[in-house]
C-alpha cells in the first residue's frame, strides 16, 4: 500500500467504518440507558425534578471553591485540556471543512497559529494530568487499563495532528493519514469506553439534580 493509498483509505473506507461503529455504538448505549426506566416515586414531590435537573446541568459545570481547593490540578488541567480539545477539534479551518462536508454546517475558524499554540497547551495539560494520576497514591490505585487507554487515544490525535501540521519526521501524506487514523481509533473505542461521558455527563447531571429537587434538597 503506497502512502497515498493509505491516505485515501483513511479518508474513505476507514473513516466510514469508524463512523458506523461510533454512531451505532453511541446511539445504542444512550437508548439503553434512557430505556432502563425508573420505578415510580410514590413519595410526594417537594420540587420540580425538571427544573432542578436543568439547573444542576449548569451548576455542576462550574467547580465550587472547596472542590477547587481539594483537586486543583485535576480541575485546572482538566478544564484546560477539555477547552483545548474543543478549540483544536472545532475551530481549526481544515476540521471545519470536514464537518461542513459531513453535516453541511459551517462556522468561522480561528487563525492557524493560535490553534497551533492551543494544541501545545492541550498536550502539555494532558501530560500533567497523567503525571498527577501516577503521583497521587489514591488516583494511582484507582487507575486501570481503560484509563490509560483512553488517555492515549485522546492525546494521539493531538500529537499526530501537531506533527502532521509541522511535517516532522515523515512525508506529508503519511503524517496526515496517521493523524486521521488516530482519530478513527478514537471514534471506534469511543462507545466502548468511558469516553462515552461526553454524551452521558449531561444526562447524569440532570438525573442528579432531578432526584434531589424532587426530594427538596439542593444538589
Amino acid at each position, binding site marked *: 500500500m*503506497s*502512502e*497515498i*493509498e493509505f*491516505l*485515501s483509505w483513511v*479518508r*474513505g*473506507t476507514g*473513516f*466510514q467504518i469508524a*463512523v*458506523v461503529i461510533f*454512531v*451505532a*455504538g*453511541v*446511539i*445504542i*448505549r*444512550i*437508548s*439503553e440507558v*434512557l*430505556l*432502563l*426506566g425508573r420505578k415510580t416515586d410514590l413519595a410526594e414531590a417537594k420540587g420540580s425534578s425538571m427544573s432542578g435537573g436543568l439547573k444542576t446541568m449548569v451548576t455542576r459545570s462550574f467547580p465550587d471553591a472547596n472542590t477547587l481547593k481539594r483537586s486543583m490540578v485535576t480541575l485546572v488541567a482538566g478544564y484546560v485540556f477539555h477547552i483545548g480539545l474543543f478549540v483544536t477539534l472545532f475551530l481549526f*479551518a*481544515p*476540521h471545519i*471543512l*470536514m464537518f461542513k*462536508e*459531513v*453535516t*453541511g454546517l459551517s462556522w468561522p*475558524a*480561528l*487563525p*492557524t*497559529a493560535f490553534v497551533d499554540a492551543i494544541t501545545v497547551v492541550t498536550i502539555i495539560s494532558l501530560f500533567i494530568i497523567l503525571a498527577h494520576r501516577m503521583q497521587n497514591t489514591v488516583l494511582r490505585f484507582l487507575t486501570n487499563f481503560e484509563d490509560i487507554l483512553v488517555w492515549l487515544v485522546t492525546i494521539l490525535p493531538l500529537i499526530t495532528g501537531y506533527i502532521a501540521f509541522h*511535517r516532522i519526521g515523515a*512525508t*506529508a*501524506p503519511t503524517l*496526515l493519514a496517521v493523524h486521521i487514523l488516530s482519530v478513527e481509533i478514537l471514534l471506534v473505542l469511543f462507545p466502548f469506553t468511558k469516553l462515552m461521558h461526553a454524551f452521558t455527563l449531561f444526562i447524569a447531571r440532570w438525573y442528579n439534580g432531578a432526584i434531589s429537587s424532587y426530594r427538596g434538597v439542593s444538589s
Partner: protein
Amino acid sequence: MTDRSNDNDKTLGEALRTQGISRRSFLKFCAATASMMALPPAMIPSIARALEKAKRPSVIWLSFQECTGCTESLTRAHTATIESLIFDSISLDYHHTLQAAAGHAAEAARTDAMKENFGKYLLIVDGSIPLGNPGYSTIAGVSNLDMLQETAKGAAAIIAMGTCASFGGIPHANPNPTGAVSVGELIKNKPIVNVSGCPPIPVVITGILTHFLTFGKLPELDHLGRPVAFYGKSIHDRCYRRPFYDKGLFAETFDDEGAKKGWCLYKLGCKGPTTYNACATTKWNNGTSFPIESGHPCLGCSEPDFWDGGGFYKSLSMPTENIGKTAVYTAAGAVGAGVALGAWNRAKKKSNTNSHKKVSIDDLDR
C-alpha cells in the same frame, strides 16, 4: 534528430560552441544548475569541466501508454535557452514523436543505438506498461513489456519521465483496465530515477542530465525514487500563498473576494500540502507562474495515485466517501436496535422481578 555519424564523437562543450553558446552563458548555466540541484558553489567549475568533456550521451526514449504531454512539456515549454540546448545536444537516437524515421528504419535506429552504446546509453520512458494483455499497447508489433525489458538490459540508467512511467499515472487509475504498472515495478536491476509530474517540469530533466554527465551517476533520490533536489519540499512549504493558510484566510469559491485577493486555495481542494514537487520555485512557461499562482489549486500530479485521491476539488481534510449519508443510515438502524435492546432489557428485568421468590424466616431456619 542530428546525424549521429558526425556528432557522436563531439564533446558537449564542442556541440554547445558550434551552436553559438558563449563561455559566459555556459558558466551561468552551470551555476544555475548547481544551485538548482542544491550543490555547493565550489562544484561549479567541476560541473563546467565535466560537461565540457562529456561525450554526448546516447538517449533512447520509449513511449508506452502515454499522452505525449511529457514530450510536449520538455520540447515546447522553453524558448532557446541553454537548458533546451543541453537537451538538444544529447544524442536522442530514438523517440517516436520526434524522430523523422518511420517503420523499420525507426526500429533499426533503436537497435543500432543499443548495440553501439551497450551499457552506456540513457533510457527515458514515458507512459505506463500494460500487463493485462500485451496487445493493449504495442510498437512495431512488440509489446511494451518486451520492448522495455529488452531496451533496459543495456541501459546505464533509466529515467521514468512523468507520473505514468513513475507510478502508473492515469492508466493505473482505478479500475486500471489495462493492468498498467510503472517502470520501477518491472525493472529492478538498474538505477531508475522517477521524474513524476503530469507533465514533469522540464528543468528537472536537464538537472538530472547535468548531474549524470558530471558525476556519472544519478542524483540523490527520495523514498519514491525522485531527485531530492527537486522533490524534497512540498508545494505547500514553498507556496507564496502559505502565509494566508497560516492566518486562516481562504478562498471559498473561485470568484469570491478571497480568490481575488490571492488567499490560500486549501478549501478549494489544493493538494499542495501532500504534493512534493518544485513547481512553486522553478515555475512553468519559462518561469511565468505555476497553477496556484493562476488561481487554481494544486492537483497533486507528481504523487502516486493522484487520480484516485477523492476528487480534485475536495480539500484534504474532507472524507472521500459520503460520510453524512453513512451516519444517517447508521443512526436510523441504531435507534431501531437501541429501542429493541431497551425493550429486551426491560422484559428481562420484569421476568427477573416476577420470578423472584420471597424468602421467609422458616426458609432461613431450615
